């Protein structure tokens, strides 16, 4: 019995040793590059930041009587659904950009990066439009506790998307100058991690803020 278990473990170890891995080992204690590890640590801390903002929104989502419009008075779900879909698809173009540079296809890298930036910019334009409409309907930042929590949460997310767009444009410029060779593909991957995180946060916000009755 013990021999069987040992043999099984050896088989599993053998399988793991030969399992395909997507990324090379680095000369660090963890085998992961320090930059990538730092980005994941940053993203883990961002979970706490957005967790706090979402919780605050949930606590304050019901405005006091007479303190301005509530969520269901102003939200335009079809419009927000469309912009959510745009942001979701930007994750596809981003991951295709990472895939392109790993293959050494710099032309497609730039195409996908520009595509991702444009989709991100479309999302931001939608958010600016949405905020303008809400403001015109009487929902200012300090109108009610609901409006403050809503604008803070979605505004923070919008700032994150904007920073992501700046990083994407920087990558395109670096690539055009020939300063983004294949062996620096991890740079694109790390920007991609940030971009996908912004997307997953919006997945939470879209469901919790807009769709849950």
């Amino acid at each position: 019995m013990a021999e069987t278990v040992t043999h099984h473990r050896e088989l599993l170890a053998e399988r793991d040793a030969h399992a395909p891995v997507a990324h090379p080992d680095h000369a660090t204690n963890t085998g992961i590059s320090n930059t990538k590890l730092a980005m994941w640590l940053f993203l883990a801390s961002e979970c706490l930041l957005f967790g706090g903002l979402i919780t605050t929104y949930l606590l304050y989502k019901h405005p006091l009587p007479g303190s301005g419009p509530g969520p269901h008075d102003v939200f335009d779900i079809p419009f927000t659904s469309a912009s959510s879909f745009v942001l979701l698809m930007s994750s596809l173009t981003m991951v295709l950009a990472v895939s392109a540079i790993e293959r050494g296809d710099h032309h497609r890298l730039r195409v996908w990066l520009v595509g991702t930036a444009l989709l991100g910019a479309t999302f931001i334009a939608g958010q600016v439009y949405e905020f303008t409409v809400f403001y015109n309907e009487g929902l200012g930042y300090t109108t009610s506790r609901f409006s403050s929590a809503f604008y803070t949460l979605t505004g923070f997310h919008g700032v994150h998307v904007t920073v992501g767009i700046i990083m994407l444009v920087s990558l395109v410029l670096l690539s055009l100058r020939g300063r983004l060779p294949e062996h620096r593909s991890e740079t694109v991957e790390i920007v991609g991690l940030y971009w996908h995180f912004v997307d997953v946060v919006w997945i939470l916000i879209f469901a919790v803020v807009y769709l849950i009755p």
Partner: protein
Amino acid sequence: MAAVTPEPTDQPIPTQALDGAVAEYPRDRLYVMTAVFLAIVTAVEIATYVWPELPVWSWGHESNVGIIAALMVLMAIKFFTVAWVFMHLKFDKPLLNRLFAAGLILAISVYLAVMAAFRMFWAGDEMVRRG
């Protein structure tokens, strides 16, 4: 496929030189299929808004428990699909899984505690009163 064991070096390592899986793995197709799956899940999410009376999620009608439960499940599926495939947790070292899970679990625990402290889960007994 032979295992790749790179020599420690200070120089960045070309991915293709080390990782045969990158060339052989049908990644782009996987990514597109994942995006299609995410689009379908999003469509189902939106359906909860368009057709709230569907029997699948209309149970617990007064409290919307069915819709909330459906949306939470769909949201979790989308969240982990993006993290697993697009963020490469599926392909990367398990340490990164643990790192991200630690942040996530910590955030969920802390904020569930905060919401419980504000009595959000006791209908009509919230410390932040409804209007």
